């Protein structure tokens, strides 16, 4: 396949200096040189790159772990501390050490444009699907083809409920691959799980659910730190909490719905994030969609990444701001500006680390407020598992609103917002959630409390550290393996989500079916969740995976 050498332009324009050196290298890189870049011998047990010099193609490439400069042919590329704002914002002085600098020394992000041929064939593929869909609709209308399932009946006088492209797409494209989505799981979604292979006789209109279970290796769940367990300290604590508090909590936080563990959780989350205070919400999606309206109002300018999650878009819409910018525009001063940036995009998985420093600089210059969604990165990134802020050694107080979820790394559900005391007080009073919907369920609260304490090392063991290191090692090992095989994958080298480009929607279904047949559960994502030509498979790594598991996959 096309190796990673076609990456240049896009990267250079987006990332500036931070990317450039790598682009230059990659421009000439072959699979072989990549192997040189990350030879197994330099990957020590804890997943850190300990290499200092590598020679390739008779050119000197210095990768120095300490002061973080990367040079090619002796030219320094400007990735030193000052130019990217690291020292200004960083808390590196306090933490110090090579670990914090680590990201900078070996900064690596992978992205490349869809090859033209693949793009063309993908569009042809969609074209065919649409054509066949129209033919089927036509045959159906003249009564030649009988679809036995749920088409909308015509009720005289009523305007059809579904008449748009959306419904056409659902019927003829999504429906036919629906067997690879929503696969029922019958066990705990840890490193391995049991699934049911559903049977359909009518192209996905209806499903038969057989009893047999099918064991697969789980690369589909967002179980980054492996806290999805049925036994162990977390499960024990949850059992106890359930006995003490019951399984749900009634009433909103303002209407006599606050339990003592809710208060404990708020305090612990604030401590974990390093913010003054925090508030927790029972649903991750709602953390954005129900709290953002309290922060923005008419006359605000929102600068939002065009790839932001649907919940942020919905939240911005509820807030009725004057203008909502998407895409990369220069932040301009307006009466009241908020910047939003989702760090690890759900589908695209290009962690925009290079830009977060820049964003903080811009934000400071133009006095904007920054809303950072760490749904996927909290727990999974950084030497202490505290997300991208930790990964880059930034000061959490530079970011006005820190948001994240408990669904992923903590093996629970819900989300949080951390920030200044004034912000949290305001949210406690005006958040839709604290007035209109019940507080987080006690078992879920307890799961977060227990897992977060383990990550922070408050349980007195090194278990949390071990999990973070294991995840990091897994990520690098797995990504390197895929690169060596020449697959097109996206994202930062430490990101636990590895998207592998498949391009064709039909191949996506076939890939998933084949994987399951071979005992690997992997998620596949296509339009509308991704751009048309960027259908992909997504591998989610977990600290629960072992080296053997990863070898088995590759």
């Amino acid at each position, binding site marked *: 396949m096309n190796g990673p050498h076609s990456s240049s332009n896009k990267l250079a324009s987006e990332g500036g200096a931070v990317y450039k050196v790598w682009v230059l290298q990659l421009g000439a890189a072959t699979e072989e040189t990549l192997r040189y870049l990350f030879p197994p011998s330099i990957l020590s047990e804890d997943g850190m790159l300990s290499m200092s010099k590598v020679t390739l193609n008779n050119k000197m490439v210095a990768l120095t772990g300490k002061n973080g400069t990367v040079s090619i042919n002796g030219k320094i590329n400007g990735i030193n501390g000052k130019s990217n704002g690291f020292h200004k914002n960083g808390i590196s002085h306090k933490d110090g050490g090579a670990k914090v600098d680590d990201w900078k020394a070996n900064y690596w992000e992978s992205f490349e444009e869809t090859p033209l041929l693949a793009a063309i064939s993908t569009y042809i593929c969609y074209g065919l699907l649409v054509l066949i869909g129209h033919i089927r609709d036509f045959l159906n209308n003249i009564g030649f083809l009988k679809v036995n399932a749920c088409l909308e009946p015509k009720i005289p006088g009523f305007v059809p*409920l579904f008449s748009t492209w959306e419904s056409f797409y659902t019927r003829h494209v999504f429906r036919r691959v629906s067997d690879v989505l929503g696969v029922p799981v019958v066990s705990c979604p840890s490193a391995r799980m049991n*699934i049911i292979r559903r049977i359909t006789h009518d192209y996905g209109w209806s499903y038969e659910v057989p009893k047999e279970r099918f064991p697969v290796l789980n690369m589909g769940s967002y179980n980054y730190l492996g806290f999805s367990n049925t036994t162990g300290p977390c499960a024990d604590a949850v059992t106890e909490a359930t006995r003490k508090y*019951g399984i749900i909590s009634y009433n909103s936080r303002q209407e006599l719905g606050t339990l003592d563990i809710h208060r404990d959780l708020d305090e612990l989350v604030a401590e974990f994030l390093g913010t003054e205070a925090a508030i927790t919400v029972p649903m991750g999606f709602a953390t954005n969609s129900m709290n953002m309206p309290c922060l923005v109002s008419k006359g605000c300018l929102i600068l939002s990444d065009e790839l932001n999650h649907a919940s942020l878009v919905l939240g911005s819409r509820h807030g009725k701001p004057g203008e909502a910018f998407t895409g990369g525009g220069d932040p301009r001063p307006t009466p009241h500006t908020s910047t939003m940036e989702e760090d690890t995009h759900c589908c695209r998985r290009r962690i925009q680390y290079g830009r977060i420093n820049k964003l903080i600089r811009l934000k400071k210059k133009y006095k904007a407020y920054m809303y950072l969604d760490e749904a996927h990165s909290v727990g999974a990134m950084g030497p202490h598992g505290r997300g991208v802020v930790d990964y880059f050694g930034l000061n959490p107080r530079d970011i006005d609103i820190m948001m994240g979820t408990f669904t992923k790394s903590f093996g629970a559900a819900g989300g949080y917002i951390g920030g200044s005391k004034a912000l949290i007080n305001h949210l406690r009073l005006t958040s839709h959630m604290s007035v209109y919907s019940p507080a987080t369920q006690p078992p879920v609260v307890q799961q977060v409390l227990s897992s977060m304490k383990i990550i922070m090392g408050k349980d007195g063991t090194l278990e949390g550290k071990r999990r973070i290191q294991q995840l990091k090692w897994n990520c690098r090992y797995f990504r390197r393996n895929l690169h060596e095989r020449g697959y097109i994958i996206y994202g930062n080298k430490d990101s636990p989500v590895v998207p592998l480009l498949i391009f064709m929607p039909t191949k996506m279904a076939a890939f998933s079916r084949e994987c399951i047949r071979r005992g690997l559960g992997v998620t596949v994502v296509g339009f509308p969740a991704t751009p048309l030509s960027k259908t992909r498979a997504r591998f989610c790594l977990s600290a629960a995976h072992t080296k053997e598991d990863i070898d088995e996959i590759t």
Partner: protein
Amino acid sequence: MMAILPATWDMYDMLQAVIQAINMELGNSSAPTYHLIFEALLIILIVKLVFSKAYAPDKTILTEKEKNELIEEWKPEPLVPDTPDDHPLLQAMENNIITGRPDKVMTINGKSVINMASLNFLGLLGDETIEAAALKALGIYGVGSCGPRGFYGTMDVHLELEERLAKFMGAEEAILYSYGFATIASAIPAYSKRGDVIFVDEGVCFAIQKGLVASRSVIKYFKHNDMADLERLCLEQQKEDKRLPKKAKVTRRFLVVEGLYAKHGDICPLPELIALKWKYKLRIFVEESFSFGVLGENGRGVTEHFGISQDEVDLIAMCLENAVGGAGGFCCGKKYIVDHQRLSGLGYCFSASLPPMLASGAIQALNIIESKPEMFSHLKHNCERIHAALSKIEGMRVMGDPIAPIKHFSLAEPSDDRSIENRTIEKIAKEAMDRGLALTPARYLEREEHILPPPSIRVAVNIKLTDDEIDKCMTIISQSCHAVLGK
């Protein structure tokens, strides 16, 4: 996932609209002459605009330094208004911390009180079989599902719960959401798009209001439970449709009501609404968060209460967080309607699924509800008893239907100043708390609600309360009211 989804479809819709407009022009060959002349003039004007010299006033070009100075000088508004730490609501939240489970009797700040604040109508909180089922599920699945429904977040218990709920409600299919608030708020925009019309009762809860905003449709509020007003709006719409028949052909019309209004405690006149639905070709969505597990002989909600077939209602949505004592919410109805949400319900697609142990708990709660239909007559009895007792208290009035499990208990003589009323209500609640009864004022986001109901104490009926206990509680309420209002 992301923004591309709505944007792409909107583009397609726009394209469709343009094509339609062109068709209309071409098909309409008998257009009046003045119309053609007018269009010709417009075209000339456009040509002139294109070729004429652009108006370019002298722009003040700022130097970098000046720009920087401007930026330096500019002071942004604070992110949030300053909230003092001793704000009464914050104090109330910090000081009323519950330890243990908020059952019939609960412990607030170490003090044991009777609980008439929690919406635990059927007393299912603390049911041992439910907890056992949840703990059993914990042993199989762990706590979180670690994924949205599409991506390995579907457990077999989710499918089972959906099937059971559909069966219980007599619907073809049910779809489970992980969060009650998100259920109706996602369901409405899944169907109703820009340009569609939604008729809605002005007393609907906040989640519906958020769904309406997200749909970007034309919203027409009618007066609370006023069928004449609804019919007036429908007639207006009919006139509009006659005027623009092409547009009417693609405008979907929806009617959104609540089964039992959370803000008022009264029941919607469903038979009349259904009649209007057929008369004016509306699709009706009913939100049943407070009527499910309460109304009807078997607790199936407002349809059973009025003896109306499920098929008459297009979509029923509700959260499971009240009577059932579960978490999350669901929608049920015909398969072709409900299935659409699996790709278009934002809160379904883009959110992690319900923790499986909570789904198992809900299944067990459903088992209990199905096996003990006598609970509902008991609940009705308690509701009526409390309603009667509250109505007798002087200086106060109780809103809503006698059989509603929530009673909004407000001042009989409203004052002009809402904050005074609020303070009086708070005082009554506090007084009752001191006497051993937990009550909560109903809280609203006062600036964001469409119509704000009068300040009230929200009394929640619990099936576990015996007649004696009810009488005792009513005495406490009566005493508290006298203590506050008598001053």
